[in-house]
């Protein structure tokens, strides 16, 4: 493993009696795209804020870029780019001014910033909107601007807290494309998401978080291999209209959800055919590859997005 940029051991965050992050161990290597996947309230943002050197850990040890984010917060933050979960662009300023001021916060000179801003506006596809106030931007544009802003100091690590939550599919794809470009250029990305497709698209490695704890760790493919079968056949039928006896032996494992049944199997076509034979074809049948959603369901007994 190459140089570690984040090393956490027993990392814990408490807010009064509530434990938001419960003794997690994480190691992230330089150049990696690392994800925290988990539902709302799992403790993803709290973890990111500790790594971002704004929130002091309640217990455990944390090193970011080899430094202590509490004692050396200023030096740590100088080398990070942060895309927070909630937009906090300056609405009184234009697109361009937001980048300028943020660069100034890092102590960069206007002269240094001028070409960098031109480049960042292009990267974010906001060159035409450079003189507009940020409140006139769409959600996707705001998000791209926030990402551009996070890059103004040429960070070694980019922290992205739910980068595409609330965006429409097209805006998400544009954003994923930008993030993949960043990754190709060698940035270390640390991101949180509650979308399994996003985690699969962007992460080399991820941890699944649930109720303040890490419940699994690995690459998306490893996690699927370890915790789900290769394929899944979904039977779209309501729980109360289903005769469970009909499902006997159709798959390795069966998960009954309120609105559908998931059949985990190595052979999707075979299972689908079997279900049709048993007269279950009237209900919708969809065979698909297993995903991180299935991993999460397996590990926690709950679905990721409610």
């Amino acid at each position: 493993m190459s140089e570690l940029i984040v090393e956490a051991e027993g990392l814990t965050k408490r807010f009064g009696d509530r434990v938001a992050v419960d003794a997690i161990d994480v190691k992230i290597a330089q150049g990696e795209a690392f994800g925290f996947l988990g539902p709302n309230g799992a403790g993803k943002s709290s973890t990111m804020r500790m790594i971002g050197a704004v929130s002091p850990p309640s217990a455990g040890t944390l090193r970011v870029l080899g430094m202590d984010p509490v004692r050396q917060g200023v030096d740590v933050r100088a080398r990070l780019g942060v895309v927070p979960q909630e937009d906090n662009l300056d609405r009184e300023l234009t697109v361009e001014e937001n980048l300028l001021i943020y660069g100034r916060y890092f102590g960069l000179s206007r002269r240094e910033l001028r070409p960098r801003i031109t480049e960042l506006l292009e990267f974010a596809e906001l060159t035409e909107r450079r003189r507009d106030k940020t409140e006139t931007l769409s959600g996707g544009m705001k998000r791209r601007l926030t990402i551009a802003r996070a890059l103004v100091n040429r960070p070694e690590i980019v922290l992205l807290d739910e980068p595409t939550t609330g965006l429409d599919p097209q805006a998400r794809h544009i954003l994923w494309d930008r993030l993949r470009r960043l990754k190709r250029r060698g940035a270390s990305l640390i991101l949180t998401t509650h979308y399994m497709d996003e985690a699969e698209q962007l992460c080399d490695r991820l941890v699944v978080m649930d109720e303040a704890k890490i419940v699994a760790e690995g690459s998306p493919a490893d996690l699927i291999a370890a915790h789900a079968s290769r394929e899944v056949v979904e039977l779209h039928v309501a729980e109360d209209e289903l005769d469970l006896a009909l499902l006997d032996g159709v798959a390795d494992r069966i998960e009954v959800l309120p609105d559908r049944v998931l059949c985990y199997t190595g052979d999707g076509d075979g299972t689908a055919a079997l279900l049709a034979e048993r007269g279950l074809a009237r209900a919708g049948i969809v065979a698909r590859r297993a995903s991180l959603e299935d991993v999460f369901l397996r590990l926690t007994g709950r679905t990721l997005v409610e």
Partner: protein
Amino acid sequence: MTPRTSSETSTRDRAAPLSAGFPAVRVLEARLLAARRTLRSAVTSALLNPLLYLLAMGLGIGAVADPSAAADLPGGSYLAFLAPGLLVASAMQLAASESLWPLMVGLEWNRTYHAVVATPLRPVDLVLGNLAFVLVRAALAGMLIALVIVVLGAAPIGGALAAVGVAVLVAGAFAAPIAAFTAKVRSHPAMTALMRFGIVPLFLFSGTFFPIENLPAPLQAVAPVSPLWHGAELARLAALGAPTAWHPGAHTGILVGLLVGGAVLAERPIRAVLCR
């Protein structure tokens, strides 16, 4: 934009500008950049409000008031008495309004301060940068008021400028503690109440519009509780050479104490919100 890997990071690029200078200045710079957009209306109101007050009250009330009574006032006329008081009262209002809602915008409503502390800047830089912004604004607004005062002949130019210095101090003496208050309460009703039951009464009863000797004795006794009263005393000394109730050093010390104490007090609740 190309992100660097740590091996190619040059220390010049990231370390030098950070250690250099006074980081709060960057917060001031951001505030000034945003304020440029509303410069015209700020200048207009900074000129128009005192002009109206001075004309309506200074000349209007001055005309109906007993001229022999006015002659005993510091400055020898009601207009001359009013002008320095108005200068510091405006500074107080400006400081209060800058330290209430804009702070909430940063802390909660737009969360812009959360973006600031994700950079090398710290909560203390935010406190000091915002305070510096209020002082700069108070200085600029004060100059405009001083211009009106000089044109109306209410004070000599040197005196008016010296009184602007007092107004800047008054602005700081209010801005810092009110910032601490806002960060602590973070409640709209509490902020409105502070304005209504704190700032407005002070505006009226701190010896800015009329000498506190005209108030009933119990109210006179509590005048020293009002920072604005100390400011008004100092401003009349600066503008007109009028004698102060206390030693000028005492008035100044109280205002400086509020500024410094307020700034110290404000850092903690702001950090509590941003770095929890």
